[in-house]
């Protein structure tokens, strides 16, 4: 087991190194001079040079890559070109929006998916199951930004139950914070819940065919009881895998929804930073997200190996 962990750890570090090189190289060729962007139409050449110098844009690519990498190892992500504040601080601020949003959406997704899947699996062949499965098909097919637009129109502009967007800030109280995250979380959760429902239902139905369920049924448990008491636990492995994947997706994949609701989250930070050519911010946030995904995968791998020793030898 230790050998396996070490092996995976080395490969994790290698992946991170490759990822950092890819990100840095990709952004090296982004056209557009950050200094020219910041100084605008009437900037003079010497003014531009002064600013480039201050931003540290004059070193060679290798030097800049090196300092970026070594900085990150110390938790120093550099200074934003446009905002002139430490990138780490900015990311920290944004995480207070993105992380709760991702968790909120994930929670909603589970809250919808678990009962729906259990219900559908226990009423196999009924109209009810057909209804649930039809809804999940719709949930997967609906573009979430369109769904978000419709929700803003109905719940924010017309009914005025929720703010149309923006983030109240946690210092305004938990309630106000959650209120501003509700519509975005619903928009994000809908497709995720649909996928989760489908995966979970299939997993439940698979285990229902297994011998131990038959035994349980033979002992007089109803189909629903057998599902809840025995099948659920066994169906959790694929479900947890999907939840893990969805979490890292939600962390990074909320860009469009963050834009619809103008939430100051990580996604919008990157989006703005790209158009402002604040490359150091783009590099660092993308790196952080990649790190998060790789870490989640690593944990999932370890968890599997722990559960099922046969997996240790191979992938």
């Amino acid at each position, binding site marked *: 087991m230790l050998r396996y962990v070490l092996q995976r750890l080395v490969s994790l570090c290698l*992946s991170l190194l490759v990822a950092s090189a890819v990100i840095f190289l990709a*952004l090296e060729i982004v056209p557009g001079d950050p200094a020219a962007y910041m100084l605008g139409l009437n900037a003079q050449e010497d003014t531009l040079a002064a600013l480039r110098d201050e931003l540290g844009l004059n070193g060679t690519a290798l030097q800049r890559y090196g300092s970026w990498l070594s900085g990150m190892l110390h938790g120093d992500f550099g200074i934003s070109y446009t905002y002139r504040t430490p990138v780490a601080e900015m990311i920290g601020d944004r995480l207070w929006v993105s992380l709760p949003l991702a968790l909120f959406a994930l929670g909603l997704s589970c809250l919808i998916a678990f009962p729906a899947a259990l219900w559908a699996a226990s009423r196999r062949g009924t109209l009810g199951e057909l209804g649930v499965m039809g809804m999940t098909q719709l949930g997967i097919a609906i*573009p979430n*930004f369109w769904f978000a637009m419709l929700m803003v129109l109905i719940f924010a502009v017309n009914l005025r139950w929720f703010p149309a967007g923006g983030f109240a800030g946690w210092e305004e109280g938990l309630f106000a914070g959650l209120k501003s995250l509700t519509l975005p979380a619903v928009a994000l959760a809908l497709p995720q819940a649909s996928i989760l429902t489908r995966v979970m239902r299939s997993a439940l*139905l698979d285990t229902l065919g297994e011998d131990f369920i038959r035994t349980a049924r033979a002992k007089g448990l109803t189909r629903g009881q057998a599902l809840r008491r025995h099948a659920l636990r066994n169906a959790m492995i694929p479900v947890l895998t999907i939840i893990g994947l969805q979490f890292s997706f939600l962390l990074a*994949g909320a860009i469009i929804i963050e834009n619809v609701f103008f939430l100051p989250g990580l996604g919008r930070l990157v989006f703005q930073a790209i158009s402002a050519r604040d490359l150091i911010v783009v590099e660092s946030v993308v790196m952080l997200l990649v790190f998060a995904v790789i870490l989640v995968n690593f944990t999932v791998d370890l968890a599997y190996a722990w559960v099922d020793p046969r997996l240790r030898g191979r992938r």
Partner: protein
Amino acid sequence: MRRNLILGTGLSAMFAGAALLSFFWVPFDIGALDIANKIKPPSGAHWLGTDHFGRDILSMIMVGGRTSIAVALVAVGIGMGLGVPLGLAAAVQRGGWLDEGIMRANDLIFAFPSLLIAIMITAVFGASAVNAIIAIGIFNIPVFARLTRGAALGLWTRDFVLAARVAGKGAVRISCEHILPNLVNLLIVQGTIQFSLGILAEAGLSYVGLGAQPPVPSWGRMLADSQTMISFAPHMALSPGLAILLTVLGLNLMGDGLRDLLDPRLQRGQR
């Protein structure tokens, strides 16, 4: 479950047919703007109304469907064209350096948040339909590579493959002649699903302005254009949204139906 297949194929065929028809005929020319007639609700002449430039929305949806379908189709093509050979190659020697390398590269691509990378690609090369295709295509490669490898590994242990090996056929020949034909059903099913995901992805990218550029219409940009007008002209936002929803729904249903039809073993409780 034939009902899924029929409903799904019907929906997909309707939108594909409308897109094809638009090459020869549309109700109104979408190149000619008619500002005086802008934002008109549905009427006898304009079944779905007109947009903010006075263009016929039905015609826009027909032509926009070409963009969505073409982008998604080529992206899936890229994913299959590169992913399947890579998956086949990886399966030849399980755990070998090639397998390891390909699978590691796959993991790496999966680790990148796809939308962010798409945005970065367009930041580097500019926004265009081609770059949207590349961005979506890249993330299709590991999907197909993984799927192909997984299924091919199973096939390599089967008797008919062993027989071919004994007969002295090389790995490349076996992969092409014996493994690949057995994967076709699986690939068609996955291809349909990736196709529907591609349509959603294209809509998302052009919604944020990174897909096909004007004057080429696209569903995502129609939604973006309609966004500020949704409160007084909901017809502008409803039709493109429904077009995306129904196309994706149709493709997903078709994929499910095909899976049941082509490979009973894959049914997994789908009845």
